[in-house]
């Protein structure tokens, strides 16, 4: 099976990653691109809030789905009588979606993808923060290591895929390696950048309070860099999802990506569409979960920024 030529070199991979290259990335600007934060910043200064506000928030979020619902309805109505092979009626797709992914066999593909993603993303996130922190802490080593890191960083992960497959075969470790190699960068570089941007007076304060180096990192440096670390983790999440699919497209016997490719090759277009829809749903849920976590972790930041903007 030869991989479809354009799949591994999806342009988004390279572009999204390179957005983090400049080390002057402004944490406020970086974080401001998160819609959840903009929304939260507008909706009040105190983190948390009553059930009433939660309900209202939910309602206003639901209300914002109106366009999405309209598109779905239009798709349903306009495709109802479609005889085109490539654009089957949405009703058929929905039926097939249920048969294959909920009642049928493709569930194992879904779990396979999610498992690899979860392991890969966790490793990328933890390693990214840890390596970023070490590069910050040991500046001299950081200066020596940085050129090498940037050298690896500029290689599009897609170009490494043949090598990784050759070395690791087509098992889980290959997929996880691909996800880690591609997704680690935004988290690592944002962590480094965020830690470099820590207010020097806060570090002085830590010294004046006689905090140990470890306590300083845990209580001052890590929380202080958290807005940027979260921005990096979010970016890594997107890249992780992309690489999860890519790893299944190039050499695999299971996973959502494999399902899509395989359906296309045996001309099961309706099923192919269901795979793509599942991917979209998985991506949306992961993003939604991330935003929910981010709102809790960065509640102080969202609140402080709202006060700042008002004052």
């Amino acid at each position, binding site marked *: 099976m030869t991989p479809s030529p354009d799949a591994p070199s999806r342009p988004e991979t390279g572009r999204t990653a390179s957005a983090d290259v400049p080390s002057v990335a402004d944490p406020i600007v970086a974080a401001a691109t998160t819609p959840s934060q903009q929304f939260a910043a507008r909706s009040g*200064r*105190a983190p948390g809030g009553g059930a009433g506000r939660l309900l209202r928030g939910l309602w206003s979020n639901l209300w914002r789905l109106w366009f999405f619902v309209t598109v779905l309805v239009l798709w349903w109505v306009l495709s109802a009588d479609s005889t085109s092979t490539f654009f089957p009626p949405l009703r058929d797709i929905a039926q097939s979606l249920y048969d294959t992914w909920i009642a049928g066999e493709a569930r194992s593909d879904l779990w396979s993808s999610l498992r690899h993603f979860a392991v890969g993303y966790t490793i990328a996130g933890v390693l990214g923060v840890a390596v970023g922190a070490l590069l910050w802490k040991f500046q001299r080593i950081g200066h020596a290591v940085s050129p090498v890191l940037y050298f690896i960083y500029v290689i599009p992960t897609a170009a490494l895929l043949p090598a990784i497959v050759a070395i690791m075969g087509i098992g889980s470790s290959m997929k996880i390696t691909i996800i880690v190699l591609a997704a680690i960068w935004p988290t690592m570089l944002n962590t480094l950048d965020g830690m470099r941007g820590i*207010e020097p*007076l*806060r570090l*002085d*304060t830590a*010294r*004046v*309070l*006689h*905090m*140990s180096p470890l*306590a300083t990192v845990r*209580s*001052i440096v890590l*929380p*202080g860099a*958290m807005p940027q670390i979260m921005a990096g983790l979010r970016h890594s999440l997107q890249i992780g999802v992309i690489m999860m699919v890519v790893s299944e497209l190039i050499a695999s016997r299971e996973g959502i990506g494999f399902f899509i490719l395989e359906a296309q090759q045996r001309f099961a277009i309706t099923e192919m569409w269901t795979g793509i829809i599942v991917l979209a749903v998985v991506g949306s849920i992961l993003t939604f979960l991330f935003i929910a976590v981010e709102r809790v972790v960065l509640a*102080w*930041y969202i*609140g*402080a920024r709202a*006060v*700042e903007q008002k004052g």
Partner: protein
Amino acid sequence: MSHPAVTPTSHSGTGTEPVLSVRALQKAYNVGKPNERLAIADVTFDVAKGEFVCVVGPSGAGKTTLLRCLSGLLAPTSGEVRFEGAPLQEVPARLSVVFQDYSRSLMPWLTVNRNVALPLKVAGVAKRQREDRIAEVLHAVGLGDVGRNYPWQLSGGMQQRVAIARALAHQPDMLLMDEPFASVDAQTRFDLEDLILKVRSDLDITVVLVTHDIDEAVYLADRVVVLSGAPSRVEEIVPVPLGRPRNQLVTRSEETFAQLRRHLMELVTAH
């Protein structure tokens, strides 16, 4: 408070060993580089136990630099700083610092309680006693029930009170303050000045406060160290024979206050 107010109302500063002694202190930035710059040329003075010393000087004189050298955050280029008899290596455990910029020295991700708890955690105080101590110091700086709030939910004056409470939490012998009241409004400033006087006499601590405000220096201090413009030297050390307790209205309208104020003004603006 746990400490009875037994502090005598004036400090002679003679006879006892000084808590802090500064000898021929010199500080240059970027030594050996083309942009080398001498910030402090030669500063010598002593601070006795329980004394309140203010350091005044024109803007850019090197006041912050001096305070950072006194706290052990910055190593002097030459000369010596001794705290409680020992040469300064790191920041001494019995010393606390309040910075001018409270919004940057308080941690916005911690509630007021947790900010104040930081030094207590370092000292290994148990949770139960920690909570008592936090309530105690917050009360001492005139903050009521704000412990669960975040610093950014408070006014500037309240934030600076939190910073002072944090500095006092682990019962230091000495408090160093760098223009602590420069970024609050005039009324709050008076309140905080009186607060620090009260805290000082209640807890019997030694205070060195840097300011560019001559009135503030006279109002607060037992002695005022006047610095020249950069690179700074000690222009004169002026004793302040005003009685205590001091009062914003009464003290500031005394004849002695006006004379001291005038004298200091001449010293600072002499060049």
